[in-house]
C-alpha cells in the first residue's frame, strides 16, 4: 500500500510540476556533464592503459646521434632495465599528390625478425613486413586515411637526401603515437605528418646506419627508480650524442593524452559543482515555499502524532522524487552526449578501439552527489518546520510587517505611483529574500559567461599566437643545424619576401634542484616574423646577452629575473653554460627560452649555425615555392602557419564549439529554471493579495505590474552580480585548465556579456509569460476564501 502521506507527496509534487521539471532539468544538466566528462575520462584511461599494456609501451625514451649496437647491450645491463629496444628513426619529407606543400614524417625501423620488443604496432589492415623486405612500409592510419591511400600504393619519400618510392603494405596504430603531431605543431594533422615503419636492414642501408642505432626505448622492472636508470642511460649515451632520456611524462603523445585527462578532470568537477549548487539553491527555495504554504498541515500532522522525523522524511522524499527524475534524464543525456564526446576524441587520439564506457560508478556517484546537494537544500528549508511546536504551526503565520521604505523616508514617493510603492515596499520588506532571489538569478548569467568565455579566450590565444608571435608564413627546420649561408639559399627561392634565421638548441635547464628538458631558441635582435612578447602583448627586444624566459618556464624552474640558469647543451660540444635570466615573457603555449642568436653562437663556441628559417612569402608564388622546397632534402620540418591556424580553427569549431554549445544549452536550461521558479514562487506568495487587488478593481495589467515589477527589478540587479560572478568562475576555470602546454588567458568578449544578458532576459520574458497566464486564471472567489 502506498500510504496516505505518500499520496499527498505525489499529488503535491504534481501540483508544482512546472517547478519540479525546471529543477529536474538543472539537476540533469549537472549529472549529464559529470557523466560526459568522467565517462570520457574513464573510457580514455581504460583504453590507454590496456593499449599500453598489450602493446608494450616503453617507460623510458632516449634519442642520440649514432651508437653501435653493442652500446644497447650495456644499457640492458643497467639494474632495473627489463627490456631494451634500439631502433633507427629518421625524419623524412614526402611528396604527396594533391598536396602542394611537402608533407613531413618519421620513418621508424621495424625488426626484420619477429615483433618489436617494445612499442608494438596494431595492424588495422594489410600485413606486417616480411623479414628483410625492401622498399615496403607500414603507415599510420590517419595519414593513410587523409590521403585516401590503398594497400599497394607507393609513396614518394625523400630520406637522407635521396628520393625513394615505398610501397604501403600495412596500416597500423602505435601506442607511441596516440596523439601524433609534427615537431612545432600543436594539433594533429594526418594529412601533413605521417609515421612509417620500415624493415630495419633496409632502413639502415638507406640512411647509412649499418649496425648502429639512434633511438632507444626501455621497459623497466617493477619498483625500479626511473631517475637512476635515466641518469645511467645519459652517462652511457653521452659520447654518442645522446639527448637526455625522458620518461612517459615527457613523451609527446603521452604528454598530450595526460594533459587532456587533466583538463577533463577540471571540467568534469567544476561545471557539475556549479550546476548542482544551483539545483540545491532551487530546491531550497521551492521547499521553503512548500513548507511555508503547508504550515498548518505540518501542525496538523504533528498534532495527530506524526514525529518530526516523519515530516522531515516526507519532504525529503519529495525532493528525492525530483532527484530521481533528474537522474534518469541526466543519465540518458550523459550517455548520449558522452558517446558523441568519445567519438570526438577518437578523431584526435588514435586508439585501435575507443568506446564510451558506461561506468556504473560514475553514474551512481553523479546521482548521489546530486541527491546530497538536494537533501542539503531541503534540510535547510525543513529545519524551521520541524522545530515549529505543533500548537504554533496550527495558527496561521502572523501577517507580514510592512514599513515605509527608504525612498519614502527621503520623500521620493510622491513621484511614484501607488503601484510602484507596493513594488518598492515588497522589495524592501524582505531585503535578504530579494537579495537571495537576485543571487539565484545571477547564477544564470554567471553560468552563461562561464560557458562562453572559453571560446573567447581560445580565439584570443590563437590571435596572439599567430598574429603577434608567430607572424611568419612558413617555418622550416633542417635535418641538422646548417651554416649561416643556408639562409641565403632560402632567401633566393622564388616568392620569398623576408627571412629570419633561428637556432634551436636542445638543452637541459637547471636551477637549484629544479630542472626541465627543453630547448633554448636563438633569435635576431629585433625579430619581426617570430616575436617574443611581454604581458602587455608588446614585442620584446632581445638583449645582447642573457636569457628571456617564458613565465611558465620560470615558474617551473622557480627562477627569477637576475638569477643564473644552468644550461646543459645537448648538441655539438655539449658545453654547460651559466646564463643570467634578464626578462620574462608572456606565452600562452609551450615553455620557451629565448636568447640573442649571436650571443648563443658565441656561447656554443662554434661557427654560426642556424637550425631553421622563418619565412614570409608572396602567396602568388606559393605553388612554385613549395615545389622547390619539396626538392630540398635538408628540410625535415615545414610548418605553414596559415594551415596550422586553419587546423586549429577547425578543431576549435568542431571540438570546443561542441562543448560550448552543450554548455550553453545547459546554461539556458538553468537560467530558465532559476527565473521561472522565482516567478512562480512570487506568484504563489502573492496570489491572495493579487486576487484582493483584482477584486478591488485593479486591471490585470496593474496586477501584473506589481508582480513583475518586483521580479524585473530583481532580474536587473542580478545581471551585474552574475557577470561579475561569471568572471570569477571563468578565472577559476582558466587556472584549472592551465598546463605546461597551454595557459588559457582570461579573455572575455563584450559579446559574451551581451549574449548572457540576452539569454537571461529572454528566459525572464518566457517565465513571466508562463506565470502571467496563471495570474489570468486566478479565481477571484476561491482566492478570497483562502483555499490555496
Amino acid at each position, binding site marked *: 500500500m502506498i*500510504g496516505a502521506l505518500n499520496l499527498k507527496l505525489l499529488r503535491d509534487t504534481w501540483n508544482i510540476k512546472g517547478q519540479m521539471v525546471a529543477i529536474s532539468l538543472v539537476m540533469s544538466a549537472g549529472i549529464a556533464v559529470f557523466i560526459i566528462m568522467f565517462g570520457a575520462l574513464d573510457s580514455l584511461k581504460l583504453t590507454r592503459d590496456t593499449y599500453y599494456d598489450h602493446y608494450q609501451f616503453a617507460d623510458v625514451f632516449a634519442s642520440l646521434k649514432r651508437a653501435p649496437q653493442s652500446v644497447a647491450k650495456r644499457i640492458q645491463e643497467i639494474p632495473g632495465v627489463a627490456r631494451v629496444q634500439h631502433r633507427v628513426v629518421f625524419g623524412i619529407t614526402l611528396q604527396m599528390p594533391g598536396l602542394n606543400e611537402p608533407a613531413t614524417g618519421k620513418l621508424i625501423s621495424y625488426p626484420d625478425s619477429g615483433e618489436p620488443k617494445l612499442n608494438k604496432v596494431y595492424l588495422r589492415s594489410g600485413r606486417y613486413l616480411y623479414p628483410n623486405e625492401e622498399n615496403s612500409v607500414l603507415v599510420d592510419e590517419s595519414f593513410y586515411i587523409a590521403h585516401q591511400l590503398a594497400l599497394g600504393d607507393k609513396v614518394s619519400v625523400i630520406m637522407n637526401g635521396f628520393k625513394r618510392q615505398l610501397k604501403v603494405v600495412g596500416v597500423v596504430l602505435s601506442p607511441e603515437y596516440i596523439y601524433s603531431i609534427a615537431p612545432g605543431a600543436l594539433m594533429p594533422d594526418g594529412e601533413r605528418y605521417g609515421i612509417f615503419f620500415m624493415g630495419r636492414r633496409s632502413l639502415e642501408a638507406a640512411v647509412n646506419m649499418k649496425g648502429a642505432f639512434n633511438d632507444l626505448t626501455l621497459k623497466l622492472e617493477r619498483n625500479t627508480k626511473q631517475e637512476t636508470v635515466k641518469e645511467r642511460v645519459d652517462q652511457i649515451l653521452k659520447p654518442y650524442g645522446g639527448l637526455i632520456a625522458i620518461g612517459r611524462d615527457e613523451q609527446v603523445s603521452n604528454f598530450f593524452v595526460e594533459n587532456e585527462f587533466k583538463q577533463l578532470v577540471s571540467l568534469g568537477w567544476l561545471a557539475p559543482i556549479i550546476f548542482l549548487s544551483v539545483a540545491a539553491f532551487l530546491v531550497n527555495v521551492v521547499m521553503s515555499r512548500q513548507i511555508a504554504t503547508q504550515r498548518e498541515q505540518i501542525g496538523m500532522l504533528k498534532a495527530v502524532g506524526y514525529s518530526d522525523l516523519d515530516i522531515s522524511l516526507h519532504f525529503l522524499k519529495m525532493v528525492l522524487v525530483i532527484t530521481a527524475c533528474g537522474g534518469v534524464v541526466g543519465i540518458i543525456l550523459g550517455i548520449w552526449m558522452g558517446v558523441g564526446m568519445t567519438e570526438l576524441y577518437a578523431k584526435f587520439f588514435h586508439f585501435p578501439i575507443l568506446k564510451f564506457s558506461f561506468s556504473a560508478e560514475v553514474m551512481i556517484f553523479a546521482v548521489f552527489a546530486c541527491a546530497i546537494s538536494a537533501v542539503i537544500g531541503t534540510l535547510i528549508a525543513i529545519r524551521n518546520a520541524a522545530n515549529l511546536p505543533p500548537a504554533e504551526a496550527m495558527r496561521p503565520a502572523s501577517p507580514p510587517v510592512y514599513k515605509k521604505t527608504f525612498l519614502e523616508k527621503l520623500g521620493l514617493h510622491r513621484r511614484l505611483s501607488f503601484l510602484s510603492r507596493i513594488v518598492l515596499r515588497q522589495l524592501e520588506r524582505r531585503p535578504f529574500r530579494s537579495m537571495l532571489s537576485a543571487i539565484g538569478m545571477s547564477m544564470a548569467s554567471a553560468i552563461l559567461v562561464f560557458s562562453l568565455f572559453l571560446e573567447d579566450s581560445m580565439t584570443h590565444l590563437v590571435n596572439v599566437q599567430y598574429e603577434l608571435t608567430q607572424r611568419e608564413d612558413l617555418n622550416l627546420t633542417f635535418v641538422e643545424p646548417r651554416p649561416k649561408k643556408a639562409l641565403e639559399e632560402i632567401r633566393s627561392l622564388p616568392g620569398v619576401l623576408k627571412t629570419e634565421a633561428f637556432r634551436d638548441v636542445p638543452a637541459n635547464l637547471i636551477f637549484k634542484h629544479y630542472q626541465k628538458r627543453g630547448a633554448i631558441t636563438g633569435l635576431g635582435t629585433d625579430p619581426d616574423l617570430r616575436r617574443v612578447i611581454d604581458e602587455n602583448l608588446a614585442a620584446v627586444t632581445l638583449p645582447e646577452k642573457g636569457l628571456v624566459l617564458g613565465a611558465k618556464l620560470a615558474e617551473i624552474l622557480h627562477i627569477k629575473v637576475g638569477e643564473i640558469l644552468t644550461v646543459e647543451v645537448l648538441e655539438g660540444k655539449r658545453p654547460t653554460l651559466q646564463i643570467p635570466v634578464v626578462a620574462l615573457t608572456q606565452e600562452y603555449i609551450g615553455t620557451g627560452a629565448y636568447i640573442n642568436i649571436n650571443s648563443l653562437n658565441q656561447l656554443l663556441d662554434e661557427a654560426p649555425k642556424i637550425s631553421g628559417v622563418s619565412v614570409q612569402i608572396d602567396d602568388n608564388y606559393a605553388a612554385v615555392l613549395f615545389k622547390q622546397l619539396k626538392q630540398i632534402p635538408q628540410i625535415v620540418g615545414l610548418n605553414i602557419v596559415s594551415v596550422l591556424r586553419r587546423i586549429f580553427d577547425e578543431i576549435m569549431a568542431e571540438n570546443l564549439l561542441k562543448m560550448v554549445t552543450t554548455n550553453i544549452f545547459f546554461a539556458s536550461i538553468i537560467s530558465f529554471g532559476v527565473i521561472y521558479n522565482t516567478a512562480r514562487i512570487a506568484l504563489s506568495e502573492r496570489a491572495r493579495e493579487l486576487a484582493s487587488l483584482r477584486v478591488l478593481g485593479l486591471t490585470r495589467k496593474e496586477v501584473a505590474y506589481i508582480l513583475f515589477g518586483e521580479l524585473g527589478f530583481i532580474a536587473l540587479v542580478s545581471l551585474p552580480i552574475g557577470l561579475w560572478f561569471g568572471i570569477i568562475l571563468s578565472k577559476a576555470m582558466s587556472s584549472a585548465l592551465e598546463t605546461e602546454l597551454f595557459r588559457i588567458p582570461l579573455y572575455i568578449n563584450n559579446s559574451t556579456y551581451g549574449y548572457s544578458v540576452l539569454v537571461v532576459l529572454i528566459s525572464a520574458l518566457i517565465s513571466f509569460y508562463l506565470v502571467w497566464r496563471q495570474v489570468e486564471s486566478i479565481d477571484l472567489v476561491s482566492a478570497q476564501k483562502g483555499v490555496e
Partner: protein
Amino acid sequence: MQIGENSKELRMDPARQPNRHFDYSFKTENLKKIYLSGETEVHALRGVNIEIPTGELVVLLGPSGSGKSTFLNIIGGLDTPSIGQVYFRGKDLSNLTNQQLTLYRRHNIGFVFQAYNLVPSLTALENIALVTEISNYPMDPLEALNLVGLGNRANHFPSQLSGGEQQRVAIARALAKQPDVLLCDEPTGALDSETGAVVLNALFDVNQKFNTTCIIITHNASIAELAHRVIYFADGNVSNVVVNQVRKSVEEIKW
C-alpha cells in the same frame, strides 16, 4: 526501549474498558503557562487545578484570551506547562520528551480544529487513512466516514466539500484512531448554525456510543447545555464549574 514502554503504558484502548483504574481523564495541579511576548511576560494560565472525569462531554467556555485554548493544547500534548503538573490517567505529561508527547498524541488523543486542517491534496477517505495508518487500533476509515454520515463523499477532495462536511471529515479523522479523548477547539466556529448542529450531533453521538471523553472549546453558550460539565475560564484560570444534572439533546438547543 523507554519510549516504547511509556507509549504502551499510556495507550488505552476504549474497546478494552480502559477506565477501570482512573475515574478521571485529566487532572491538573497548579498549572501555569507563561509566554514571553517581547519583554513582557504573558500569564496565559495562572495555576489551574481541575479534574476532568472520564467519559464525560465537557465544554470549556470563556472569552478570548481566558486561557482555554492554552489549557486544551497542554492537555493534548501540543504544548508544555511552564509550572505545575498535568496528569493523564495518573501519568505526568509535563515531564515527557518531545518524542513521548508525539506518541501520546498519536495513540491517545484525537483533535478537531476550528479550521478543519484537512490535507487539500488528499480525499476525505485518504485524510482519515493518514491517521489510521499510524494508530494501533484504528477503525476502517470508511466506517469512520459512515459514522459522520459522509460515506458517500469518501472520494471527494476537501475543496469539493462544504465547510460542515469538511469538519465532519475532521471529526471522522479524530474518531478513526479510537482515541481515549477527543479535543475540539471551536469545532463549529466557522460554520453556520444548521451545519454546526450536524457537527455537534456527531460529537454527541461519539460520546454516547464510545464513552469517549470529549472536551470542546466554544464561544457559544447554548452548546453548554449539551454537556455533562461546563468549565468557565476567565483571566487564565477556572472561574466556575457547572455540572448539568439534565442534559439537552442537540435538537432541543436554541441557537
